[in-house]
């Protein structure tokens, strides 16, 4: 009996001794999960879904390297305007909870970098995944001599032409088919577009002649550029505005809504869905859209094939005879928050997601263009006729300057357009208000000529 008790005690003591070792062993083998947050804007969720997929590949690599780390990407899509999206990021940053990866427009890197919200990503520029990115796109993520983001996608803006309406106006198929080329050659100008649109409305073959987006965006930068409104002196970080051309551009919008009345006065009061539906329903002859508009229409119930039949796509015709037609691109980029605690993992994740397969998958699905040469050589992209047919437009593209002032500048310009379109002001009045507003905002950094 005495011996039995003693054995139990030995077993008990042995277990007691082994407990810390077992706990330690479990701790050693426990995989540490690291969550990386990634936020994007809009419905194109592949921007962050690609990161989730890339994390799986990264985890495989980490396993092979024998690291007990598992990366989990927590994606979030912000639904709202660009201004609110920027505020959302700043708020999270101030709460010391900034997302590790912040998808944004390239033009935002100036203020993001200047205020140390994001970190430099020069090393990614040199990485294998990004070595065949179109050179122009790198230029869009450069600020102050450094690279602050990696391109995620690129797009082109264009004018969607409802060919059914043109046919109703009596245009032959040949006339319709050669229209984009006439735009390229400058034979079909913005005035011509207005006149045709006016004719369509007059002849009641279309409810509206020309529609544009309801909220502020790159299209309006494109519009003022079409009228040679401003140039940006990068060396002095100064916007030089040609007052006459600015008046012309404001007059253009005034004419559309008030003189010709081929654009709804309350366009900027409508919702995206309303505008999209008007386009889908064939209510307008021309629409200032972009390639991703197709994605939105499909999301809103339109049939891709029907859209391809109904619309043709052309560069924005030049407003000044002799000038070239134009388009604008607004590359979205991945930036990395300076608050990230996992810089190495984040950069590795971005390196993986830079692979052309992820990029072309996103591009084809959401109707964007790939960012690199290998992207345009993927089967998925080659098979997409629409995207291929508009690739040429990239040669006419332009970008917003990477300067913080353009965020405020475009907002003021958009307010002026709202004022003239709504007939709240004459173009001349809107010009004066705009000039005051710009001078007050930028001081000597804006010059009127």
């Amino acid at each position, binding site marked *: 009996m005495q011996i039995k008790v003693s054995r139990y005690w030995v077993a008990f003591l042995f277990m007691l001794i082994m407990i810390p070792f077992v706990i330690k062993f479990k701790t050693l083998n426990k995989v540490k999960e690291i969550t990386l947050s990634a936020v994007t804007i809009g419905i194109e969720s592949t921007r962050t879904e690609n990161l989730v997929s890339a994390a799986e590949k990264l985890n495989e690599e980490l396993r092979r390297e024998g690291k007990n780390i598992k990366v989990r990407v927590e994606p979030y899509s912000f639904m709202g305007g660009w201004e609110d999206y920027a505020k959302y990021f700043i708020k999270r940053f101030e709460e010391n909870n900034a997302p590790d990866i912040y998808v944004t427009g390239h033009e935002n890197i100036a203020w993001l970098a200047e205020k140390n919200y994001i970190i430099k990503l020069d090393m990614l520029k040199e990485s294998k995944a990004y070595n065949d990115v*179109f*050179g*122009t796109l*790198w*230029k869009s993520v450069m600020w102050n001599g450094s690279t602050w983001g990696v391109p995620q996608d690129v797009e082109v803006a264009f004018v969607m032409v409802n060919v059914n309406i043109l046919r109703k106006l009596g245009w032959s198929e040949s006339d319709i088919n050669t229209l984009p080329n006439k735009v*390229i*050659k*400058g034979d079909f100008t913005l005035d011509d577009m207005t006149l045709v649109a006016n004719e369509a409305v007059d002849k009641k073959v279309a409810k509206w002649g020309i529609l544009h987006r309801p909220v502020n965006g790159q299209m309006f930068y494109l519009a003022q550029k079409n009228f*040679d409104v401003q*140039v940006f002196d990068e060396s002095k970080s100064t916007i030089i505005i040609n007052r006459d051309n600015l008046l012309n551009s404001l007059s253009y919008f005034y004419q559309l809504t008030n003189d010709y009345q081929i654009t709804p006065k309350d366009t900027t009061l409508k919702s995206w869905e309303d505008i999209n539906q008007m386009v889908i329903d064939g209510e307008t002859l021309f629409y200032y859209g972009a390639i991703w508009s197709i994605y939105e229409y499909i999301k809103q119930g339109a049939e891709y094939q029907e859209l391809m039949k109904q619309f043709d796509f052309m560069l924005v015709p030049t407003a000044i005879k002799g000038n*070239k*037609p*134009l388009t604008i691109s607004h590359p979205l980029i991945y930036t990395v928050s300076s608050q990230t605690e996992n810089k190495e993992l984040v950069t590795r994740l971005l390196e993986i997601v830079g692979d052309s397969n992820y990029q072309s998958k996103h591009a084809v699905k959401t109707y964007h263009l790939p960012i690199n*040469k290998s992207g*345009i050589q993927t089967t998925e992209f080659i098979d997409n006729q629409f995207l291929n047919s508009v*690739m040429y437009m*990239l*040669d*006419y*593209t*332009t*970008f917003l300057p990477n300067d913080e002032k353009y965020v405020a500048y475009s907002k003021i310009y958009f307010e002026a357009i709202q004022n003239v379109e709504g007939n709240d002001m004459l173009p001349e009045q809107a010009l004066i208000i705009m000039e005051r507003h710009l001078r007050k905002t930028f001081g000597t950094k804006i010059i009127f000529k």
Partner: protein
Amino acid sequence: MKKTSIHTRIVKNQLIVLLVTIIVMYINIYFLLYFSLMNQTSKYQKEELNYINNHIDTYFENIENQANFINLNQELRSFLVYHNQLDENKLFLDQTIQNEISFFINSNAPNKLHLFNLNTQIITDNNIQLNTNLNETFWYKDFTMNQYKNRIYRNSPIENTNERIISYVFGLYDFTETSYIGFAKFDISPNVFKEFLDTKIASSNPILILDEHGNIISSYFKDLFLEAQIISEISDITANKRIKINNNNFLINKHTSAYTNWTIVSSISINDKLSYVNSFGLMLIPIILFILLINIFVSYNTSLKIVKPIKILIESIKIAEKGDLSHSEISTSELREISELSTSYSNMITEINYLVEKNHKMNLLRIESQLTALQQKIDPHFLFNTLELISSKAIIEGANSTSIMTQKLGNLFRYNLKTKDFITIKEELNYIKDYLYLNKIGFDEELTVLYNTEESIFGYIIPKLTLQPILENTIKHGFGGVGCSDNIISIDAYKDGNDIIITIKDNGIGMTAQMVSELNASLKSDINNFQYFINRKEHIGLRNANARLCLLYNMEKALFIQSSPNKGTTITLSFDCNKKRREIDVQNNDC
């Protein structure tokens, strides 16, 4: 066999070794310098070629960066694409674009930029339309045919000169970087390029720059013959090639740029470089001569320091060979070995002198004793038998004292005949007891002898017949050979520390102070001046005893005399028993 002196041999050998060493070193240094110089020259040449090449590459890479910057200008790209499809003959660049790339196209730009779309040249504010049809220009045809991305061309010579403009042409590409949309041609003026090269190429080193076809772009050669030979052999030039022209050797190296495909050739005159080595060689000769002189001087003096004391030593040995061992003083040397040799020789001569002297003295003493004994020598067996017979007869006749006297006399003879030179104190005391017994009978018993001896000293060694001459002196001179009832001889023998002391005291007539002084001085001089000892005949017994004791116990004086007229004489014999000479072979070596 001809014998040479150490002095000559040392100087001669030293000179030969030094000469051979210097010659070998000189040759080694020459070849070391030669190969080192060649290596350094080749290394320097390659580094210089790399340096120049890197600068030329950088020069063109900077232009490439400018071209890339221009190519990324989206406004220019749109402009080119737009105008390409218009097929215009004359094209002016938009002012906006001109402003954006003004740095490259302004009239102060070092390299003049010309822009082209696919059809024609684009005119800016700072240039005019070149009077050429684009399709007929060589660079355009070559560039588009081979679909180069960038290419360096050399145009036709400028009118009335041999200088050619270097054109660096770049393709300008569409957004997706797949097709040409235009060209950027940077014209580099020969003067500008030469000014650039002048800052990078040291005028002392001839440099030749050739394009991929072997045409000269720039030459810094003054020797046109050498230049022509290099160009003719350019494809055969490998690393460190040597070309010989008019007895002048040239080291040739070249470097071909992977960027420009240009070959840069450098030539360095080996003769010029070797002239430094030769000058250095000549400069060494006086130094070598100086070293030789110094060496001769040093070796001469060093050998002299060795040879001089050896010579003195040899002279001393020669004198010693002739039997004169008195010449043991030699000159000292600062060289340890020589000094030790001299000292050892001196010690050896001193020791030899000592041994010779000692041997000589001992022999003399022995001879003297032997002569004395010989004078009295009678056949001992006859003498002892006769004495025994007399003793027996005396006992038979009742003359016991006569019998005893006869026995004592026999003892004395027996003692004298002993062959040993050294005996114990006990044996000597027994002898003198017998001797004094006989003398006492001669004095009619009018002699009192008092013995006060410690047995502990009986074993110590002294020369045979040490005490007997002293007692003989006492009886003969102290008591005048006449017995008297007051005659007393007191003999004390004892040990005081290591000293054995034996005193013989009498109450005889004594000696004057002068006599005592002379005798004591004589005893002291005997051991240091043997000739003196030999020459003096007085007190021979005392001096003999003293001398032999001194020799045995390695001392200067063993006897000490104290005496006053009519007050007797005390003779003290003392010696340190520990100082006994080891080489004295005695049977009773107790000490």
